[in-house]
Protein backbone atom coordinates (compact mmCIF):
# COMPACT_ATOMS: atom_id res chain seq x y z
CA UNK A 1 0.00 0.00 0.00
CA UNK A 2 1.38 3.40 -1.00
CA UNK A 3 2.19 5.80 1.78
CA UNK A 4 0.12 8.98 1.93
CA UNK A 5 1.82 12.06 0.60
CA UNK A 6 3.21 14.47 3.14
CA UNK A 7 0.73 17.27 3.88
CA UNK A 8 -2.17 15.39 2.21
CA UNK A 9 -5.59 14.82 3.80
CA UNK A 10 -4.73 11.11 4.16
CA UNK A 11 -1.53 11.98 6.00
CA UNK A 12 -3.40 14.38 8.32
CA UNK A 13 -5.88 11.60 9.09
CA UNK A 14 -3.02 9.23 9.91
CA UNK A 15 -1.43 11.89 12.13
CA UNK A 16 -4.70 12.26 13.99
CA UNK A 17 -4.91 8.51 14.61
CA UNK A 18 -1.32 8.40 15.81
CA UNK A 19 -1.74 11.34 18.20
CA UNK A 20 -4.92 9.87 19.64
CA UNK A 21 -3.14 6.54 20.18
CA UNK A 22 -0.21 8.30 21.88
CA UNK A 23 3.40 7.18 22.21
CA UNK A 24 4.38 3.61 21.36
CA UNK A 25 5.62 1.16 23.96
CA UNK A 26 9.07 1.53 22.43
CA UNK A 27 8.95 5.31 22.90
CA UNK A 28 7.84 4.87 26.52
CA UNK A 29 10.70 2.58 27.39
CA UNK A 30 13.56 4.25 29.18
CA UNK A 31 11.54 7.19 30.46
CA UNK A 32 10.06 7.38 33.93
CA UNK A 33 6.37 6.78 34.49
CA UNK A 34 6.09 10.21 36.14
CA UNK A 35 7.14 11.78 32.84
CA UNK A 36 4.34 9.96 30.99
CA UNK A 37 1.88 10.75 33.78
CA UNK A 38 2.68 14.43 33.20
CA UNK A 39 2.20 13.92 29.45
CA UNK A 40 -1.21 12.31 30.06
CA UNK A 41 -2.19 15.03 32.52
CA UNK A 42 -1.49 17.72 29.94
CA UNK A 43 -3.18 15.75 27.16
CA UNK A 44 -6.34 15.21 29.24
CA UNK A 45 -7.02 18.92 29.59
CA UNK A 46 -5.16 20.54 26.71
CA UNK A 47 -7.48 23.10 25.10
CA UNK A 48 -5.18 24.60 22.48
CA UNK A 49 -4.42 24.14 18.78
CA UNK A 50 -1.17 23.99 16.86
CA UNK A 51 -0.75 25.15 13.28
CA UNK A 52 2.40 23.33 12.22
CA UNK A 53 3.59 24.97 9.06
CA UNK A 54 5.86 23.98 6.23
CA UNK A 55 7.45 27.15 4.88
CA UNK A 56 8.58 25.74 1.56
CA UNK A 57 6.23 22.92 0.71
CA UNK A 58 7.25 21.62 -2.75
CA UNK A 59 5.01 22.58 -5.67
CA UNK A 60 3.96 18.98 -6.23
CA UNK A 61 2.55 18.91 -2.68
CA UNK A 62 0.61 22.11 -3.13
CA UNK A 63 3.23 24.76 -2.43
CA UNK A 64 3.78 26.52 0.87
CA UNK A 65 3.30 27.91 3.29
CA UNK A 66 0.77 25.31 4.34
CA UNK A 67 -0.18 24.08 7.82
CA UNK A 68 -1.16 20.95 9.65
CA UNK A 69 -3.78 22.22 12.08
CA UNK A 70 -4.08 20.04 15.18
CA UNK A 71 -6.91 20.95 17.56
CA UNK A 72 -6.94 19.39 21.02
CA UNK A 73 -9.97 19.10 23.30
CA UNK A 74 -11.59 16.62 25.68
CA UNK A 75 -8.37 14.68 26.06
CA UNK A 76 -8.09 13.87 22.38
CA UNK A 77 -7.52 15.34 18.93
CA UNK A 78 -10.75 17.03 17.99
CA UNK A 79 -9.54 18.14 14.59
CA UNK A 80 -6.60 17.51 12.29
CA UNK A 81 -6.51 18.97 8.82
CA UNK A 82 -4.36 20.65 6.20
CA UNK A 83 -4.72 24.42 5.82
CA UNK A 84 -3.54 25.82 2.52
CA UNK A 85 -1.88 29.19 1.91
CA UNK A 86 -5.19 30.79 0.93
CA UNK A 87 -7.27 29.33 3.78
CA UNK A 88 -7.98 31.27 7.01
CA UNK A 89 -5.62 30.27 9.80
CA UNK A 90 -6.92 30.27 13.36
CA UNK A 91 -4.72 28.52 15.93
CA UNK A 92 -3.51 29.12 19.48
CA UNK A 93 0.08 28.55 18.40
CA UNK A 94 1.54 28.94 14.93
CA UNK A 95 4.84 27.17 14.34
CA UNK A 96 6.86 26.77 11.17
CA UNK A 97 9.54 24.43 9.85
CA UNK A 98 11.36 24.03 6.57
CA UNK A 99 10.50 21.04 4.40
CA UNK A 100 13.99 19.59 4.88
CA UNK A 101 13.50 19.63 8.67
CA UNK A 102 10.09 17.95 8.39
CA UNK A 103 11.75 15.25 6.32
CA UNK A 104 14.62 14.94 8.80
CA UNK A 105 12.12 14.49 11.64
CA UNK A 106 10.44 11.75 9.62
CA UNK A 107 13.83 10.15 8.97
CA UNK A 108 14.49 9.92 12.71
CA UNK A 109 15.98 13.27 13.74
CA UNK A 110 15.28 13.86 17.42
CA UNK A 111 12.17 15.91 18.23
CA UNK A 112 13.79 17.53 21.29
CA UNK A 113 16.68 18.79 19.18
CA UNK A 114 14.23 19.92 16.50
CA UNK A 115 12.92 22.37 19.11
CA UNK A 116 16.23 23.14 20.83
CA UNK A 117 18.03 23.87 17.57
CA UNK A 118 15.14 26.06 16.41
CA UNK A 119 14.32 23.93 13.39
CA UNK A 120 10.71 24.47 14.42
CA UNK A 121 9.89 27.96 15.63
CA UNK A 122 6.96 29.47 17.44
CA UNK A 123 5.88 32.41 15.35
CA UNK A 124 2.52 33.28 16.93
CA UNK A 125 1.15 32.62 20.43
CA UNK A 126 2.32 33.07 24.01
CA UNK A 127 5.82 31.66 24.36
CA UNK A 128 5.66 31.21 28.13
CA UNK A 129 2.29 29.46 27.98
CA UNK A 130 3.45 27.24 25.13
CA UNK A 131 6.48 26.10 27.08
CA UNK A 132 4.49 25.04 30.13
CA UNK A 133 3.47 22.04 28.03
CA UNK A 134 6.65 21.63 25.99
CA UNK A 135 7.20 17.97 26.91
CA UNK A 136 3.74 17.17 25.57
CA UNK A 137 4.50 19.10 22.40
CA UNK A 138 7.88 17.41 21.85
CA UNK A 139 6.46 13.92 22.34
CA UNK A 140 3.60 14.78 19.98
CA UNK A 141 6.06 16.08 17.40
CA UNK A 142 7.98 12.82 17.72
CA UNK A 143 4.75 10.89 17.08
CA UNK A 144 3.98 13.00 14.01
CA UNK A 145 7.47 12.23 12.73
CA UNK A 146 6.80 8.50 12.90
CA UNK A 147 3.70 8.66 10.68
CA UNK A 148 4.50 7.07 7.36
CA UNK A 149 4.50 9.52 4.47
CA UNK A 150 5.95 10.03 1.05
CA UNK A 151 8.33 12.99 1.03
CA UNK A 152 9.32 13.86 -2.54
CA UNK A 153 12.95 14.82 -2.99
CA UNK A 154 13.51 18.52 -3.46
CA UNK A 155 14.76 19.55 -6.88
CA UNK A 156 18.46 20.13 -6.62
CA UNK A 157 18.83 18.36 -3.28
Amino acid at each position, binding site marked *: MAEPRFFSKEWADAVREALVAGPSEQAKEGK*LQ*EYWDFYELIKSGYPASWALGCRDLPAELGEGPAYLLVQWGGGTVSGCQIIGPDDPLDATYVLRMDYADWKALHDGYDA*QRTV*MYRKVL*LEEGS*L*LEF*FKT*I*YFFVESLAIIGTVAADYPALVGS
Partner: protein
Amino acid sequence: MTELRSPTAVLREGPRALTDEQVREIEESDLQAVLDVDIDDVIEYVHRDLKSLPDFTTLYRKYLKQRWDVYDLDFTQDKIDWTQKMTEDERQSFIAISSGFHHGERQVEIELPVFMIGASEEEKLHIAAQIEDEARHTVFFDRFYREVVGMQGDDIMGVLDASFPWVSETFVGPFGLLAYQADELRRNPYDERARVRYGTTYFLWIEGVLALSVMKVTLSYARWRGFLPAYYTGFTATCRDESRHVQGGMKYLQDAVRKDPTMINEIHDTLRTILSLAGVASRRIYFEPLGWTEDEVTVLFFQQLRRKLNDVGIDLAPDIEELLQFVQPQLAGG
Protein backbone atom coordinates in the same frame (compact mmCIF):
# COMPACT_ATOMS: atom_id res chain seq x y z
CA MET B 1 43.98 25.88 49.71
CA THR B 2 41.37 24.66 52.18
CA GLU B 3 41.22 21.14 53.61
CA LEU B 4 39.35 18.43 51.72
CA ARG B 5 35.75 17.88 52.82
CA SER B 6 33.17 15.32 51.76
CA PRO B 7 31.30 16.39 48.58
CA THR B 8 28.14 17.36 50.46
CA ALA B 9 29.72 19.01 53.52
CA VAL B 10 28.87 22.48 52.25
CA LEU B 11 25.14 21.71 52.55
CA ARG B 12 25.51 21.42 56.32
CA GLU B 13 28.04 24.22 56.75
CA GLY B 14 25.96 27.01 55.24
CA PRO B 15 27.49 30.07 53.55
CA ARG B 16 31.24 30.45 53.91
CA ALA B 17 33.13 33.58 54.82
CA LEU B 18 35.97 34.01 52.35
CA THR B 19 39.16 35.67 53.53
CA ASP B 20 40.86 38.28 51.38
CA GLU B 21 43.58 35.73 50.71
CA GLN B 22 41.03 33.17 49.46
CA VAL B 23 39.42 35.77 47.22
CA ARG B 24 42.83 36.69 45.83
CA GLU B 25 43.59 33.00 45.25
CA ILE B 26 40.34 32.58 43.29
CA GLU B 27 40.70 35.77 41.29
CA GLU B 28 44.37 35.61 40.47
CA SER B 29 45.22 31.92 40.09
CA ASP B 30 46.56 31.00 36.69
CA LEU B 31 45.20 27.86 35.06
CA GLN B 32 47.68 25.46 36.67
CA ALA B 33 47.03 26.88 40.15
CA VAL B 34 43.25 26.52 39.76
CA LEU B 35 43.74 22.82 40.55
CA ASP B 36 44.35 23.85 44.17
CA VAL B 37 41.31 26.08 44.49
CA ASP B 38 38.33 24.62 46.38
CA ILE B 39 35.18 24.56 44.24
CA ASP B 40 33.06 25.48 47.27
CA ASP B 41 35.11 28.62 47.66
CA VAL B 42 34.52 29.50 43.99
CA ILE B 43 30.77 28.99 44.35
CA GLU B 44 30.82 31.16 47.46
CA TYR B 45 32.79 33.72 45.48
CA VAL B 46 29.91 33.92 42.97
CA HIS B 47 27.66 35.21 45.73
CA ARG B 48 30.22 37.46 47.38
CA ASP B 49 29.57 40.38 45.04
CA LEU B 50 25.85 39.89 44.49
CA LYS B 51 24.85 42.44 47.15
CA SER B 52 26.99 45.15 45.58
CA LEU B 53 27.22 44.04 41.99
CA PRO B 54 30.28 45.11 39.99
CA ASP B 55 29.68 47.21 36.89
CA PHE B 56 30.11 45.72 33.42
CA THR B 57 33.47 47.37 32.76
CA THR B 58 34.87 45.85 35.97
CA LEU B 59 33.57 42.45 34.92
CA TYR B 60 35.18 42.88 31.51
CA ARG B 61 38.52 43.78 33.12
CA LYS B 62 38.27 40.68 35.32
CA TYR B 63 37.65 38.61 32.19
CA LEU B 64 40.83 39.92 30.59
CA LYS B 65 42.83 38.78 33.62
CA GLN B 66 41.07 35.45 34.14
CA ARG B 67 40.72 34.06 30.62
CA TRP B 68 42.52 30.77 30.15
CA ASP B 69 43.65 28.66 27.24
CA VAL B 70 41.57 25.50 26.95
CA TYR B 71 44.34 23.91 24.89
CA ASP B 72 46.77 24.19 27.81
CA LEU B 73 44.95 21.41 29.66
CA ASP B 74 46.57 17.96 29.60
CA PHE B 75 44.00 15.18 29.95
CA THR B 76 46.54 12.32 30.14
CA GLN B 77 45.96 11.58 33.86
CA ASP B 78 42.19 12.02 33.45
CA LYS B 79 42.18 9.29 30.82
CA ILE B 80 43.98 6.95 33.23
CA ASP B 81 41.57 7.81 36.04
CA TRP B 82 38.55 7.32 33.78
CA THR B 83 39.59 3.99 32.33
CA GLN B 84 41.49 2.43 35.23
CA LYS B 85 40.41 3.94 38.55
CA MET B 86 36.75 4.94 38.27
CA THR B 87 34.09 2.26 38.53
CA GLU B 88 31.48 1.71 35.82
CA ASP B 89 28.82 3.13 38.17
CA GLU B 90 30.90 6.25 38.72
CA ARG B 91 31.48 6.69 34.97
CA GLN B 92 27.79 6.27 34.17
CA SER B 93 26.69 8.75 36.86
CA PHE B 94 29.35 11.20 35.80
CA ILE B 95 28.45 11.10 32.14
CA ALA B 96 24.73 11.33 32.88
CA ILE B 97 25.45 14.62 34.63
CA SER B 98 28.22 16.05 32.46
CA SER B 99 26.33 15.48 29.19
CA GLY B 100 23.87 18.17 30.25
CA PHE B 101 26.84 20.52 30.42
CA HIS B 102 28.32 19.29 27.15
CA HIS B 103 25.12 20.35 25.38
CA GLY B 104 24.32 23.23 27.75
CA GLU B 105 27.57 25.07 27.09
CA ARG B 106 26.93 24.89 23.36
CA GLN B 107 23.40 26.21 23.83
CA VAL B 108 24.38 29.20 25.97
CA GLU B 109 27.17 30.03 23.51
CA ILE B 110 24.93 30.22 20.46
CA GLU B 111 21.90 31.84 22.12
CA LEU B 112 23.75 34.79 23.65
CA PRO B 113 24.70 37.03 20.66
CA VAL B 114 21.15 38.35 20.13
CA PHE B 115 21.02 39.60 23.71
CA MET B 116 23.94 41.89 22.96
CA ILE B 117 22.02 43.94 20.39
CA GLY B 118 19.81 45.72 22.93
CA ALA B 119 22.49 46.08 25.62
CA SER B 120 24.35 49.22 26.75
CA GLU B 121 27.84 49.74 25.31
CA GLU B 122 29.53 48.67 28.57
CA GLU B 123 27.34 45.58 28.82
CA LYS B 124 28.23 44.72 25.22
CA LEU B 125 31.88 44.36 26.29
CA HIS B 126 30.86 41.97 29.06
CA ILE B 127 28.57 39.94 26.77
CA ALA B 128 31.23 39.70 24.05
CA ALA B 129 33.61 38.32 26.69
CA GLN B 130 30.94 35.93 27.91
CA ILE B 131 30.36 34.58 24.39
CA GLU B 132 34.10 33.86 24.14
CA ASP B 133 33.98 32.16 27.56
CA GLU B 134 31.08 29.95 26.48
CA ALA B 135 32.86 29.01 23.25
CA ARG B 136 35.91 28.00 25.32
CA HIS B 137 33.69 25.93 27.65
CA THR B 138 32.21 24.21 24.62
CA VAL B 139 35.70 23.26 23.46
CA PHE B 140 36.56 22.13 27.00
CA PHE B 141 33.75 19.57 26.96
CA ASP B 142 34.52 18.57 23.39
CA ARG B 143 38.08 17.78 24.45
CA PHE B 144 36.95 15.95 27.62
CA TYR B 145 34.52 13.75 25.71
CA ARG B 146 37.05 12.96 22.98
CA GLU B 147 40.21 12.55 25.04
CA VAL B 148 38.88 11.11 28.30
CA VAL B 149 35.48 9.52 27.72
CA GLY B 150 36.58 8.33 24.27
CA MET B 151 33.63 9.52 22.20
CA GLN B 152 34.37 10.10 18.55
CA GLY B 153 33.08 12.61 16.04
CA ASP B 154 34.23 14.31 12.86
CA ASP B 155 33.54 17.71 14.38
CA ILE B 156 32.04 19.37 17.47
CA MET B 157 28.52 18.42 16.45
CA GLY B 158 29.64 14.83 15.89
CA VAL B 159 30.75 14.53 19.52
CA LEU B 160 27.56 16.26 20.68
CA ASP B 161 25.63 13.63 18.71
CA ALA B 162 27.58 10.90 20.49
CA SER B 163 26.78 12.20 23.99
CA PHE B 164 23.16 13.12 23.25
CA PRO B 165 21.76 9.72 24.36
CA TRP B 166 22.75 10.68 27.92
CA VAL B 167 20.83 13.97 27.79
CA SER B 168 17.51 13.89 29.61
CA GLU B 169 14.26 14.56 27.72
CA THR B 170 13.54 17.41 30.13
CA PHE B 171 16.62 19.32 28.90
CA VAL B 172 14.35 20.96 26.34
CA GLY B 173 12.49 22.73 29.16
CA PRO B 174 15.02 25.42 30.07
CA PHE B 175 17.20 25.18 26.95
CA GLY B 176 14.35 25.04 24.43
CA LEU B 177 12.78 27.99 26.21
CA LEU B 178 16.06 29.88 25.94
CA ALA B 179 16.31 29.08 22.23
CA TYR B 180 12.81 30.40 21.60
CA GLN B 181 13.39 33.47 23.76
CA ALA B 182 16.54 34.14 21.74
CA ASP B 183 14.41 33.95 18.61
CA GLU B 184 11.95 36.38 20.19
CA LEU B 185 14.88 38.79 20.70
CA ARG B 186 16.09 38.20 17.15
CA ARG B 187 12.78 39.61 15.96
CA ASN B 188 12.60 42.43 18.57
CA PRO B 189 16.08 42.98 20.04
CA TYR B 190 15.10 46.15 21.91
CA ASP B 191 11.98 44.73 23.58
CA GLU B 192 13.01 45.28 27.20
CA ARG B 193 10.35 42.96 28.60
CA ALA B 194 11.46 40.14 26.31
CA ARG B 195 15.07 40.81 27.38
CA VAL B 196 14.13 40.47 31.06
CA ARG B 197 12.32 37.20 30.39
CA TYR B 198 15.35 35.94 28.47
CA GLY B 199 17.68 37.10 31.25
CA THR B 200 15.63 35.26 33.84
CA THR B 201 15.97 31.98 31.96
CA TYR B 202 19.61 32.42 31.01
CA PHE B 203 21.29 34.19 33.92
CA LEU B 204 19.10 33.37 36.90
CA TRP B 205 17.89 29.85 36.16
CA ILE B 206 20.37 28.18 33.78
CA GLU B 207 23.58 29.80 35.00
CA GLY B 208 22.68 30.82 38.52
CA VAL B 209 20.80 27.73 39.63
CA LEU B 210 21.26 24.75 37.29
CA ALA B 211 24.90 25.27 36.33
CA LEU B 212 26.28 26.18 39.72
CA SER B 213 24.42 23.36 41.44
CA VAL B 214 25.39 20.60 39.07
CA MET B 215 28.94 21.85 38.55
CA LYS B 216 29.48 21.26 42.21
CA VAL B 217 28.40 17.60 42.02
CA THR B 218 31.06 16.45 39.53
CA LEU B 219 33.74 18.84 40.78
CA SER B 220 33.40 17.92 44.45
CA TYR B 221 33.51 14.25 43.43
CA ALA B 222 36.72 14.79 41.44
CA ARG B 223 38.30 16.74 44.30
CA TRP B 224 37.16 14.28 46.97
CA ARG B 225 38.49 11.26 45.06
CA GLY B 226 41.56 12.98 43.68
CA PHE B 227 40.58 12.05 40.12
CA LEU B 228 40.36 13.90 36.80
CA PRO B 229 42.80 16.78 37.50
CA ALA B 230 42.43 18.46 34.09
CA TYR B 231 38.64 18.23 34.30
CA TYR B 232 38.76 19.74 37.80
CA THR B 233 41.09 22.49 36.66
CA GLY B 234 39.19 23.41 33.51
CA PHE B 235 35.73 23.17 35.02
CA THR B 236 36.69 25.11 38.16
CA ALA B 237 38.10 27.80 35.88
CA THR B 238 34.76 27.59 34.05
CA CYS B 239 32.99 28.14 37.36
CA ARG B 240 35.13 31.23 37.96
CA ASP B 241 34.02 32.46 34.51
CA GLU B 242 30.43 31.73 35.48
CA SER B 243 30.79 33.95 38.53
CA ARG B 244 31.23 36.92 36.16
CA HIS B 245 28.30 35.77 34.06
CA VAL B 246 25.97 35.37 37.02
CA GLN B 247 27.04 38.70 38.52
CA GLY B 248 26.54 40.44 35.17
CA GLY B 249 23.19 38.75 34.67
CA MET B 250 21.98 39.61 38.15
CA LYS B 251 23.11 43.19 37.65
CA TYR B 252 21.11 43.35 34.43
CA LEU B 253 17.96 42.01 36.13
CA GLN B 254 18.41 44.18 39.22
CA ASP B 255 18.88 47.32 37.10
CA ALA B 256 15.86 46.46 34.95
CA VAL B 257 13.60 46.10 38.01
CA ARG B 258 14.96 49.26 39.62
CA LYS B 259 14.33 51.20 36.43
CA ASP B 260 10.83 49.78 35.99
CA PRO B 261 9.40 47.89 39.01
CA THR B 262 6.77 46.21 36.82
CA MET B 263 9.61 44.17 35.28
CA ILE B 264 9.33 41.90 38.31
CA ASN B 265 6.21 40.52 36.61
CA GLU B 266 8.32 39.33 33.66
CA ILE B 267 10.71 37.56 36.05
CA HIS B 268 7.81 35.94 37.89
CA ASP B 269 6.02 34.85 34.71
CA THR B 270 9.20 33.28 33.39
CA LEU B 271 9.80 31.47 36.68
CA ARG B 272 6.21 30.20 36.63
CA THR B 273 6.86 28.54 33.27
CA ILE B 274 10.25 27.15 34.31
CA LEU B 275 9.04 25.84 37.65
CA SER B 276 5.91 24.29 36.20
CA LEU B 277 8.27 22.06 34.19
CA ALA B 278 10.94 21.62 36.85
CA GLY B 279 8.89 19.16 38.88
CA VAL B 280 9.08 16.48 36.18
CA ALA B 281 11.92 14.04 35.56
CA SER B 282 12.16 11.65 32.63
CA ARG B 283 15.12 9.63 33.92
CA ARG B 284 16.37 8.54 37.29
CA ILE B 285 19.94 9.67 37.78
CA TYR B 286 22.02 7.92 40.38
CA PHE B 287 24.10 10.50 42.22
CA GLU B 288 25.24 8.08 44.90
CA PRO B 289 28.38 6.86 43.09
CA LEU B 290 29.55 10.49 43.09
CA GLY B 291 28.84 10.93 46.81
CA TRP B 292 25.46 12.66 46.52
CA THR B 293 21.77 11.82 46.87
CA GLU B 294 18.95 13.29 44.80
CA ASP B 295 17.59 15.05 47.90
CA GLU B 296 20.95 16.69 48.54
CA VAL B 297 21.11 17.95 44.95
CA THR B 298 17.60 19.36 45.35
CA VAL B 299 18.69 21.18 48.53
CA LEU B 300 21.60 22.60 46.57
CA PHE B 301 19.18 23.89 43.90
CA PHE B 302 17.10 25.68 46.50
CA GLN B 303 20.16 27.19 48.14
CA GLN B 304 21.39 28.54 44.83
CA LEU B 305 18.05 30.04 43.81
CA ARG B 306 17.25 31.57 47.20
CA ARG B 307 20.66 33.16 47.58
CA LYS B 308 20.51 34.79 44.15
CA LEU B 309 17.03 36.16 44.74
CA ASN B 310 17.75 37.35 48.27
CA ASP B 311 21.07 38.95 47.40
CA VAL B 312 19.70 40.96 44.48
CA GLY B 313 16.44 41.76 46.29
CA ILE B 314 13.92 39.89 44.15
CA ASP B 315 10.86 38.63 46.08
CA LEU B 316 8.78 35.67 44.91
CA ALA B 317 5.01 35.60 44.60
CA PRO B 318 3.22 33.03 46.85
CA ASP B 319 2.21 30.80 43.92
CA ILE B 320 5.86 30.61 42.83
CA GLU B 321 6.88 29.62 46.35
CA GLU B 322 4.36 26.82 46.03
CA LEU B 323 5.80 25.65 42.70
CA LEU B 324 9.24 25.52 44.28
CA GLN B 325 8.12 22.67 46.50
CA PHE B 326 7.99 20.41 43.45
CA VAL B 327 11.36 21.20 41.88
CA GLN B 328 13.52 18.25 40.92
CA PRO B 329 17.18 18.26 39.93
CA GLN B 330 17.65 19.18 36.27
CA LEU B 331 21.02 17.88 35.21
CA ALA B 332 22.16 20.56 32.87
CA GLY B 333 23.98 23.80 32.83
CA GLY B 334 25.81 26.23 30.69
